[in-house]
């Protein structure tokens, strides 16, 4: 079987091949508009995760009980009530509670103007965990005055915007950390299984089969309940990612094995083998790159899968728990009352959808672009 020669991965001179492939990848990626959009959004999300403290007006743990279930306020740029008056502001709330139905009604009070400014002072935090500051991108002029809830308030009076921004940290990183573990396991075991075949394959396949045939939910339930109780939020978070990757690596392993099996018989592998190249080198240099497209497709698909798995686990009450803030934790607040009277509590769902779509499209584009046989 003949192959195009420009980026032939079988060429021992891999340095050049990789470099030119990278350029090719970038060029191809730019053609895929959805993927570019995905790339931009994904980068933005990770930036948000890094600068969450600075971007959010409040600490995610701050509550103001008087404003439970407060709806989103509109951010005004110009005050037209009395001529043109530039300057950011929001209107204050007027609230009443029906003594019989206990329903709260919030009305924007056009007469109460809460000035808002960029780089406002607010709760103190440590940027990158190092620099102590209290400057926030946007916030009410007077940090001790009436609050500002651009995306509404939660059922206990947290600022929903700050919580979603902070949730980005955990939700976006849980996928990466989990993926790293799943990837290592999946590629090594799947590769070994597919390449060596025979006994190695049989043993690894039993292991994979075993993990796949234990349904995820009971495995989660059991493992999550068995986590040592004195673990803090960080350890719990890491443990959850491990649990998630235990479920996820098998998919990758299976994909890798299937491709290996199919590729093993290809001419270039036989050629390499006849050349006396070691097995490890054949796998690493020849087999892996030849289906990197497939790996990337499977990998990108598993980041969102982990983000989603975290929301499911938290929904079942097994994942992370408040006061830890993740999108899953925020979404576990969604109930019929939220659907009916506080739809803004669904906004973390929008964040999940955005992230999952963006990463998917990015992976999709990468996959197309990274294809070495592309003309």
């Amino acid at each position: 079987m003949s192959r195009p020669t420009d980026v032939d991965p079988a060429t021992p001179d891999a340095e050049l091949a990789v470099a030119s492939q990278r350029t090719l990848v970038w060029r191809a990626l730019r053609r895929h508009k959805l993927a570019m959009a995905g790339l931009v959004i994904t980068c933005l999300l990770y930036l948000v995760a890094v600068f969450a403290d600075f971007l959010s007006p409040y600490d995610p743990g701050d509550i103001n009980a008087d404003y439970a279930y407060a709806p989103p306020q509109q951010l005004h740029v110009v005050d037209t009530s009395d001529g043109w008056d530039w300057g950011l502001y929001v209107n204050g709330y007027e609230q009443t509670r029906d003594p019989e139905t206990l329903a709260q009604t919030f009305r924007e009070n056009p007469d109460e103007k809460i000035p808002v400014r960029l780089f406002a002072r607010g709760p103190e935090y440590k940027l990158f965990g190092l620099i102590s500051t209290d400057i926030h991108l946007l916030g009410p002029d007077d940090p001790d005055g009436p609050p500002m809830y651009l995306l509404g308030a939660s059922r206990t009076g947290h600022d929903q915007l700050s919580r979603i921004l902070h949730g980005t940290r955990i939700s976006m990183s849980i996928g990466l950390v989990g993926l790293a573990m799943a990837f290592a396991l999946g590629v090594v075991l799947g590769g070994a299984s597919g390449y060596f075949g025979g006994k190695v394959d049989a043993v690894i396949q039993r292991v994979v089969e075993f993990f796949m045939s234990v349904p995820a939910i009971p495995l989660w339930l059991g493992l999550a309940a068995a986590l040592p109780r004195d673990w803090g939020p960080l350890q719990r978070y890491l443990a959850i990612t491990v649990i998630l990757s235990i479920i996820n690596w098998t998919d990758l392993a299976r994909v890798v094995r299937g491709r290996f099996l199919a590729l093993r018989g290809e001419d270039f592998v036989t050629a390499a083998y006849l050349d006396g190249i070691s097995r490890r080198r054949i796998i690493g240099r020849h087999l892996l790159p030849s289906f990197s497209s497939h790996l990337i497709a499977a990998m990108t698909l598993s980041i969102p899968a982990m983000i989603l798995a975290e929301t499911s686990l938290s929904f079942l009450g097994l994942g992370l728990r408040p006061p830890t803030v993740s999108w899953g934790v925020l979404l576990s607040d969604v109930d019929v009352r939220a659907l009916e009277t506080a739809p803004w509590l669904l906004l973390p769902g929008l964040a999940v959808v955005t992230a999952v779509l963006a990463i998917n499209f990015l992976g999709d584009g990468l996959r197309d672009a990274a294809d070495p046989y592309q003309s």
Partner: protein
Amino acid sequence: MLTFVARRVALMIPTLVLISIVTFTIIQLPPGDFLTTYVTNLSAQGEQVDPAEVAALRARYGLDEPLPAQYLTWIWGIVSDGDFGRSFEWNRPVAEMISDRLPLTIVFMAATVVFTWIIAFPIGLYSAIRQYSITDYVATTIGFLGLAIPNFLLALALMWMGLNVFGQDSVGGLFSPEYRDAAWNLGKVLDLAGHLWVPMVVLGTAGTAGLIRILRANLLDELRKPYVTAARARGMPERRLLLRYPMRVALNPFVSTIGWVLPVLIGGEVIVSSVLSLETTGPLLLSSLQSQDMYLAGSIILLVSVMTVIGTLISDLLLAWLDPRIRHGMA
């Protein structure tokens, strides 16, 4: 081929034994046992239970025996005369409870798989052929939206909309109240169809994206192979060119999914069915896990695992049949 099948079947047995042991252990991982859970539930409702009575019950259920002994009793019952034990919580034989709910679960699963394929196949095919077109973008976006929305949220929202927007007459479940315990007839089947679409869409859309992606990726890989170019150069009609070989290779993932689609569906089914309160095994599994009703939970998990192992076997066989290279590699 026959020896291949025989060897695979023989290998299944140790896997199943291991699964049954691990299953049993997982259920025991959370602290306490069924009775602790039972007592805390009662006391949360304001009831009190005599400590002496709890000890007596524990002895009666055999919960005071060591774990290996409990496991052996359970597994021996299954092997010797198909006795899966009794559910503590429902006080009924486990086999009876599962067989009550299994048919509906299978209907639900089958409908979902078919739905997933029907949606995924055309979208995947289309977006591979018309790569980078606007329609490709729209189709994939729709395909992925189902994946991106968390299942429980979609289920809850659809249920709420069913009531408040579409004016459905009853909430939750797979049947209207008047058909719920009625005998099967055409009306009941129609009623089931009228209720089944919500869980089917929720669960199905979540799986569609994965299939679209893999189908599209594989097809693109194949379409760029030299033999396709060669065939095209010889003037083979595009449609035949597509269906002749690339399609068959691209279908591999569909086949290999048969094996793992089941546990994934069961996992998703647990959440969706619990939110929608369906009469399937999902809510049963969740509640039995939560109450540590170990024989019921263990039996459901075991059953699902057996189905998965068999599913994997079938998918391997099909794969070998579809792709001669794999078959020869194995022989």
